[in-house]
């Protein structure tokens, strides 16, 4: 296993081609726009060495029997699926933001399972390749991007009907030693500071989409792979400190567009190649694994937000007001509901044919559906309790200024027992944790809300529920035993 420092050092060895704000960034590690996301990911490495967290942070590999960082683990039991949820909450409580590594983890578990099932049907050897790949990731403790979302162009058209054929990642050439791929993956969490990307298709496909039915892995500094790092709300504040709100760990995961400009993938890193009927399965596997997480990492992140909001109530001198208490209760209720369904998805998980465990689909989808609403509602309550000053606070430069600084501290004082600076810091944390970028992640990450609703209806078994109703009121039907 790597420590956080070893992880950061390993990033310095990469030659990732990354662009941001109109220029190529050569030194990614020390770039102030990217560094907070690196710090967050580094913590996931350090926690594996911290006795306080190692019970969750360390797992035993089913492939090698060695101790590994849990973020590289293939889920072996219900206990693993529960520990996943608990581990993510524990980290969220420390970072107050996304720590990026779960996407690649879920991608590995999805590819591990689907490759096994493709092999059973076609006699291919994808699963052995997937096992070798996972072993390599585990033994080198690498950070992997989970690359599912294509740019998709016209959402009403399948891949092969898009006017621009590159709007979904596809194979443009097949060679003896591998394939050449073109296209892009959008919104890729942690891509700037990961070692590898594991690519999967993004929508169910028909035989005409064969060239798009491809799953593979590449180091992110492969020739032909380039990244364009995304902007975030208020990101120029990363050039300072206090105004960032969460100066060490930042906001969300640091997302990038990852472009494949005719990149070469050797066969041993190809895990699906044209088997269109397995694409839907792969999309669903990844989505379900990933949706469980949102009631875990976000529960930890929201724990921090609830704490910050309760502190603001103290700082403003309104802790005892009944409507404030009630609103805090509401925040707790929503957060624990999400975590409960994430845990339920783990406790009710099941073994897949490949042997790895898979969350309960309904509970995982409920978890994600709830976060698309509750995170917004929780932030609304945080804004309500905190007051308008988080929208109008002067800058940290004005706070440092000898003329304006003392005036700001005087007029932004709340409860006299609390330094004005604490109130300002907490306000900035809440402002940044409840702003645009962090909320959009909860809406669309792991799929837009409608995607969960489709799965909820599919799995609801309505016909059986209709039978139950008929039974209860005596309408003629087959009696339940």
């Amino acid at each position, binding site marked *: 296993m790597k420590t956080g420092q070893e992880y950061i050092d390993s990033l310095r060895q990469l030659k990732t081609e990354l662009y941001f704000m109109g220029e190529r960034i050569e030194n990614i590690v020390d770039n102030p726009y990217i560094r907070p996301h690196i710090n967050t990911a580094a913590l996931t490495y350090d926690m594996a060495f911290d*006795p*306080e*967290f190692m*019970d*969750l942070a360390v797992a035993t590999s089913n492939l090698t029997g060695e101790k590994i960082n849990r973020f590289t683990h293939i889920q072996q039991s219900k206990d693993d699926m529960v520990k996943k949820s608990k581990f993510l909450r524990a980290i969220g409580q420390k970072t107050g933001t996304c720590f990026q590594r779960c996407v690649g983890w879920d991608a590995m578990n999805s590819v591990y399972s689907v490759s096994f099932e493709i092999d059973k049907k076609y006699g291919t050897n994808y699963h052995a390749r997937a096992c070798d790949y996972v072993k390599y990731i585990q033994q080198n403790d690498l950070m992997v991007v989970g690359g599912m979302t294509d740019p998709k162009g016209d959402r009403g058209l399948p891949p092969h009907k898009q006017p621009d054929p590159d709007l979904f990642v596809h194979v443009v050439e097949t060679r003896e030693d591998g394939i050449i791929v073109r296209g892009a993956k959008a919104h890729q969490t942690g891509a700037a500071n990961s070692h590898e990307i594991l690519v999967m298709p993004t929508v169910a496909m028909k035989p005409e989409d064969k060239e798009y039915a491809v799953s593979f892995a590449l180091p992110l500094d492969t020739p032909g792979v380039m990244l364009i790092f995304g902007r975030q709300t208020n990101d120029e504040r990363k050039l300072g400190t206090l105004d960032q709100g969460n100066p060490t760990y930042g906001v969300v995961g640091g997302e990038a567009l990852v472009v494949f400009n005719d990149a070469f993938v050797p066969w041993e890193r190809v895990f699906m190649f044209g088997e269109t009927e397995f694409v839907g399965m792969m999309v669903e596997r990844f989505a379900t694994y990933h949706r469980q997480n949102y009631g875990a990492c976000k529960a930890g992140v929201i*724990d921090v937000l609830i704490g910050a909001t309760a502190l603001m109530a103290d700082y403003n001198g309104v802790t005892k007001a009944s409507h404030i208490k009630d609103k805090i209760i509401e925040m707790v209720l929503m957060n624990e509901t999400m975590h409960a369904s994430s845990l339920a998805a783990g406790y009710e998980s099941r073994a897949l044919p490949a042997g790895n465990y898979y969350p309960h689909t309904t509970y995982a989808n409920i978890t994600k559906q709830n976060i698309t609403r509750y995170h917004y509602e929780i932030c609304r309550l945080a804004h309500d309790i905190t007051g308008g000053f988080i929208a109008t606070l002067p800058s940290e430069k004005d706070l440092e200024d000898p003329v304006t600084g003392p005036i700001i501290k005087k007029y932004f004082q709340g409860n006299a027992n609390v330094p004005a600076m604490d109130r300002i810091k907490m306000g900035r944390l809440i402002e940044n944790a409840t702003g645009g970028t962090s909320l959009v992640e909860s809406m669309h990450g792991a799929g837009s809300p409608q995607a969960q609703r489709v799965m909820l209806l599919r799995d609801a078994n309505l016909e059986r529920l209709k039978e139950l109703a008929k039974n209860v009121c005596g309408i003629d039907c087959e009696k339940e035993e």
Partner: protein
Amino acid sequence: MKIGIKYCGGCNPVINRKRLVKQVMQQLPDDVSYEYFDFNDCDVVLVVNGCSIACAEVPSGKDIIMVAGPTIDGWEYPEDKLADKVIEKWSAR
């Protein structure tokens, strides 16, 4: 004497586990040593769970003092009394 310290994973602790262990250590004799990883040679293992679910894997065949959130062996105490209670248990052995 060697004491093992075994933490749960810390997903959502209701007590400050690290502070509790620090307080316990402050009250134990200076010649006590601590082990966090391999409990084979430990005389006693202090298992520190952050909440009453007590999910930490308990090392087998060892003398255990089990903290689970604000409880020790099922009895509830104020958090600031937990360290004293652990010491009491330890001394009674």
